[in-house]
């Protein structure tokens, strides 16, 4: 069953149009990667889904119901969580408070502080320090844990590996299968194409706000992806 169905999505920042007639589908339990160069519209796509940017479309449906023009808080309550680019932890909140506030919507489910600490043991001993006092990798773990605390059906990861050391990126990507095993669908926005192809069931490649290529990773050759990514 289609979890998310988007048809002819246009998105705007004031007068600037960032997405042009984008179609996008996501099935339950599926992991989709959205790749593309800077300014391709990947982040805007996630912001449109979460109600954080002005958007129009023929359809922006979650489980068959329109989420267009819904408040971000309503969308979180429906089960869509986001791990934003740059982590965006709350500086005045401790690590644990950052995690707890992820569950603000009160959506029921299996995730709890203990389970997040089991997934990211490094956070347990750092629970009392401000989120911004953590290393980049630990901040990303906290941001992922914060999203999980809302018991989502769908998590949107924006630039998961940006600014992190390769070894840390490896650690972060290692937990994605555990999240997927919970039945959680994922959209992974990523500039590291290899990482994205490893975890994704399907790939969307965006270019200047338009869909340039889509398909299962195994069905796409490197040349086709490079051509779609760079517009050559």
């Amino acid at each position, binding site marked *: 069953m289609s979890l998310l169905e988007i048809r002819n999505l246009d998105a705007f920042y004031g007068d600037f149009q960032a997405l042009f007639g984008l179609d996008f589908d996501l099935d339950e339990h599926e992991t989709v990667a959205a790749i593309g160069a800077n300014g391709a519209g990947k982040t805007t796509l996630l912001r449109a889904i979460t109600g954080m940017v002005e958007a129009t479309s023929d359809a922006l449906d979650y489980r068959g119901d329109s989420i267009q023009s819904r408040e971000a808080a309503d969308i979180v309550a429906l089960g869509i969580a986001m791990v934003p680019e740059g982590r965006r932890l*709350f500086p005045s909140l401790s690590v644990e408070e950052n995690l707890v506030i992820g569950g603000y*919507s009160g959506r029921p489910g299996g995730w709890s502080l203990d389970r997040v600490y089991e997934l990211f043991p490094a956070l347990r001993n750092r629970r009392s320090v401000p989120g*911004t006092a953590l290393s980049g990798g630990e901040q990303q773990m906290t941001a992922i844990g914060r999203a999980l605390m809302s018991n989502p059906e769908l998590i949107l990861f924006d630039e998961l590996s940006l600014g992190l050391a390769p070894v840390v990126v490896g650690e972060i990507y290692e937990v994605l299968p555990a999240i997927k095993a919970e039945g959680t669908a994922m959209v992974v926005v990523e500039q590291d194409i290899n990482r994205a192809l490893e975890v994704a069931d399907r790939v969307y490649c965006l270019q200047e706000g338009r869909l340039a290529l889509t398909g299962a990773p195994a069905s796409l050759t490197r040349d086709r992806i490079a051509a779609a990514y760079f517009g050559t």
Partner: protein
Amino acid sequence: MIEWINSIVQGVLTGGLYALFAAGLAIIFGVMRLVNIAHGDLIVLAAFVAMVVIETAGVDPFVSMIAVLPFMFFFGYVLQRGVLNYTLGDDLLPPLLVTFGISIVIQNLLLEIFSADSQRLNAGAIETASIKLAEGIEIGTLPLIVFVVAVALIAALQIGFSRTRLGRAFRATSDDPSTARLMGIRQRHVFGLAMGVSMVLVAIAGIFIGIRTNFDPALGPSRLLFAFEAVIIGGLGSMWGTLAGGVILGVAQNIGAKIDPGWQILAGHIAFLVILVLRPNGLFPRTRDE
């Protein structure tokens, strides 16, 4: 010497009232970056609301809080949801202008309804009761109650901000409103609640000011000034900073008045300016703002 100590003690107690003025202002600036020019007038409005409740129901000013506090909470929530939320954005000017307009509207409505006559809330014998601490040092029971209430409220706010769900939502929204929305926090509702809490403090301050001194529709701007000075001296790092700001202002005013009665207000402003020069971010600034 004992007279100077007495001035400082009286100043500390006055500071409790100033801290009450400032706490409400600090909450809404902290949570939503809204500079409420009408804050002083809302304190005076609360005093007039209390006066109406007292006259209508024939109750004590302290008992009137049962009606005035919920009314002001609701008033603040509706004001925020119905008007002020629409002024918030990247530009600080619209909320300044709108609250300035609200300030003028409140002053003139109060003037129209209640005239320019000075009013007072009668609390009975407690107004003049005092406690003798030492030879030459007596403290008024009422100023002591005001100070204790201010400390208790600031402690409650500090605990509320650090340990409750709503407190975390206030802090998260203050840190990063956009990301807070991604947590499921309804920003407009949270802002409404913050204004409601601020108005509860305003109501308490308004009733205390009505018992301690005469008030009239034009009193608001000077109370706003004291509130601003206490907030800026405190530095917005914690609610305790606001109390410290109020106390410093109160002590400075009382020492100024001891030197020369005409220097009371001026001494407070000088203390404010000195601290602004020495510590531009206040005594207890937010860590991330340093």
